[in-house]
């Protein structure tokens, strides 16, 4: 006989699942706790040295970089989103999704490309000199890209899509009658934007801004290539150059304060996003621009795509073709790092999606009340906010201790887990676990609870229900999560630099090494591989986030 129970009282999973979910959540928290332990346990003397010699300059650089990038991404992202929402101009349909393309470009690749493109003897400066009638770089040269303003511009034009995406989604759901009401009350289009549309979009802008700034904080390649000594760069050099783990941990701890502030900003934004969907009526219809203003709009919305994606992508294609023609194929080293990249990304994807499924399923809501295990899903999703270097430093001490113990126990030489890349896979899993957890949670929330209740009443246990009912229905969420993790793991640089086994290169570290040496041999080929892979989730994002944003058929109310 099947024991009947009220659905609200169904335990979501058995004890094995519960323990596994708890272990994953604690595993994600472990590096942060270990970081605090190292930082606090290393004595005050260390801190004094750090506060006097390292932190002030690195913290100032980081603050200026965050401030500059913040302003730039807000202006570009919000401006383009508003333009595409309220105006119809040549190319609007394409630019609507093309404005997302810079998301496919890791910041270090764009910095790498522009360093070569804007080199004093590179093509751009050469062309400018030719136009102005100069012969040599001594007579005329553009300001050096290797500077804080240079880094701000490069990062701003790559990271603005985070704001564009959230702002565009918000403007698409803003009811048109709010803007119309402002117009009838005496506001022109510009005034109505600043007094109504922008205040209503503020929560969405906060979410996009915090994501862009978390990426800025995570960046190591672009800052280092462009000569800006940020906190992230300081963590890396303190550990790698000076072998000072305690010092690195202390700087990483300081970064965590910035992370907490940014995550608080993001959460605040998400909590207040109800404004957007509270009164969903007919959406804002774009009004057609004519003549010069139409072309001005096209140029304005095209520039960020050109600078953030098209120019560096064309450069990479050009350099790759040149390399393949002249060099006669790819080196064994590069092919090896391609294999390493795919292997690492595949391993991280399988583990992250499995962990994500486990946590999301074990902590799902089965009754009317939120389960007490909900915090585990939130904790498991925290890794996205922790910069790769911080995560790596936090993971290093417990991993090394565990590894040494394991080596002694099994009588193996060296550090078996570190050498096999297991620690790197764990770090990447922690960093990218938020994507499968979030995606699967959202997928589960869309399925009616009656499906599970029916399966359970028909005698199936939770695991069987998952396998026979939910897994087939969750396939799109699983695939999307897997794709996002795979591509992000391919692009990952900071944690990989710190935790990779000896003589192990991925495409990202290969590119980093070439840029660090100042050679541009096969770096462009590696970069192009990463960018092509990175395009896949952008296409996915454009299809899901901006669906329905194409020019609306003129069946509703046309604009004034």
């Amino acid at each position: 006989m099947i024991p009947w129970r009220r659905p609200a009282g169904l335990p979501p999973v058995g004890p094995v699942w519960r323990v596994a979910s708890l272990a994953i959540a604690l595993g994600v928290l472990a590096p942060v706790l270990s970081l605090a332990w190292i930082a606090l346990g290393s004595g005050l003397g260390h801190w004094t040295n750090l506060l006097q010699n390292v932190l002030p300059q690195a913290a100032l650089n980081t603050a200026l970089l965050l401030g500059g990038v913040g302003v730039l991404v807000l202006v570009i992202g919000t401006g383009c989103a508003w333009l595409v929402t309220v105006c119809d101009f040549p190319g609007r349909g394409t630019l609507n999704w093309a404005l997302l393309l810079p998301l496919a470009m890791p910041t270090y690749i764009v910095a790498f490309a522009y360093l070569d493109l804007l080199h004093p003897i590179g093509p751009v400066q050469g062309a400018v000199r030719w136009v102005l009638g100069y012969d040599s770089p001594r007579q005329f040269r553009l300001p050096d890209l290797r500077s804080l303003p240079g880094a701000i511009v490069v990062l701003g034009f790559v990271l603005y899509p985070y704001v564009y995406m959230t702002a565009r989604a918000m403007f698409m759901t803003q009811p048109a009658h709010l803007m119309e009401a402002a117009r009838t009350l005496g506001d022109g289009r510009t005034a109505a934007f600043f007094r109504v549309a922008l205040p209503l979009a503020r929560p969405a802008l906060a979410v996009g801004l915090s994501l862009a700034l978390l990426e800025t904080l995570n960046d190591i390649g672009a800052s280092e290539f462009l000569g800006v000594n940020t906190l992230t760069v300081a963590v890396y050099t303190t550990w790698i150059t000076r072998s000072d783990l305690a010092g690195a941990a202390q700087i990483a701890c300081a970064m965590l304060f910035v992370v907490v502030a940014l995550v608080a900003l993001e959460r605040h934004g998400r909590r207040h996003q109800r404004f957007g969907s509270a009164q969903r009526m007919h959406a804002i219809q774009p009004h057609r621009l004519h003549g010069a203003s139409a072309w001005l709009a096209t140029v304005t919305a095209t520039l960020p795509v050109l600078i953030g994606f098209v120019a560096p992508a064309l450069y990479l294609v050009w350099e790759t073709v040149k390399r393949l023609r002249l060099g006669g194929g790819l080196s064994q080293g590069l092919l090896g790092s391609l294999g390493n990249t795919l292997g690492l990304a595949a391993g991280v994807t399988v583990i992250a999606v499995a962990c994500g499924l486990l946590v999301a399923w074990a902590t799902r809501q089965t009754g009317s009340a939120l389960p007490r295990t909900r915090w585990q899903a939130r904790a498991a999703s925290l890794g996205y906010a922790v910069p790769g270097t911080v995560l790596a430093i936090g993971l290093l001490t417990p991993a090394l201790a565990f590894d040494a113990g394991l080596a002694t126990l099994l009588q193996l030489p060296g550090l078996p887990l570190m050498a096999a890349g297991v620690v790197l896979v764990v770090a990447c899993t922690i960093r990218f676990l938020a994507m499968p957890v979030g995606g699967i949670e959202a997928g589960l929330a869309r399925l009616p609870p009656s499906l599970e209740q029916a399966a359970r009443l028909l005698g199936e246990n939770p695991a069987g229900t998952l396998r026979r009912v939910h897994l087939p229905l969750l396939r799109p969420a699983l695939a999307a999560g897997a794709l996002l993790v795979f591509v992000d793991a391919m692009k990952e640089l900071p944690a990989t630099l710190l935790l990779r086994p000896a003589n192990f290169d991925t495409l990202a570290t290969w590119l980093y090494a070439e840029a660090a040496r100042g050679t541009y041999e096969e770096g462009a080929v590696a970069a192009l591989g990463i960018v092509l892979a990175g395009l896949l989730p952008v296409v996915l994002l454009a299809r899901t986030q901006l669906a329905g944003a194409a020019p609306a058929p003129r069946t509703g109310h046309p604009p004034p």
Partner: protein
Amino acid sequence: MTTTPQSSALRLDEVRIAYDGRQGEHVAVDRFSLALDAGQIACLLGPSGCGKTTVLRAIAGFEPVRAGSIHLGDVLLSSPARHLPPERRRVGMMFQEYALFPHLTATQNIAFGLRRQPRAAQQARAAELLALVGLAEAGGKFPHELSGGQQQRIALARALAPSPALLLLDEPFSNLDLDTRERLTAEVRIILKRAGQTALLVTHNKAEAQAMADHVGLMHNGRLARWDAIAR
């Protein structure tokens, strides 16, 4: 513009409103004419899709006209050659969904259209209108803290605040329950008459039209089929 609520009168002459669709031109309103004296309340009555809301939106400046003209007093608002932007028409509108700004309090919503006035004057006018609509205590509340009927009255107060020459009301009672609707229909007429406000409202409810208006126009297929005075 020099028109005042007392001297203004609305005039639509042979107005035509159409959209370009996939199957050619779709005519929403055709050869539509009406005249409304200052201080009068008129109502356009008709089934869904007959074009009555489109007429309202054209008067507000949200729809261009393809033929004919719309005048408010001596001011030409719309013609095929001229389109005065909505913010310069001195036409207020109360939307079907109220369109209260969710990030502003009731007082801030009411004062929204008064930004060129000193702050003290804005506050005084907002307080005066809150009292007029019977919600003197609700000024500090946000729209989501108000009931449907209260939201409707705040929307009315907001539309009245800049003293528009003409007030448009688009299905003003359709989101309310039956009891509230009956009570507010009478109240809104009293408020409008007390303010000496010229108003044009749109509804598909015949009883509502007769309770509110001095004139009722019956619309059919984008045209004005009848225009009757209501005896009071």
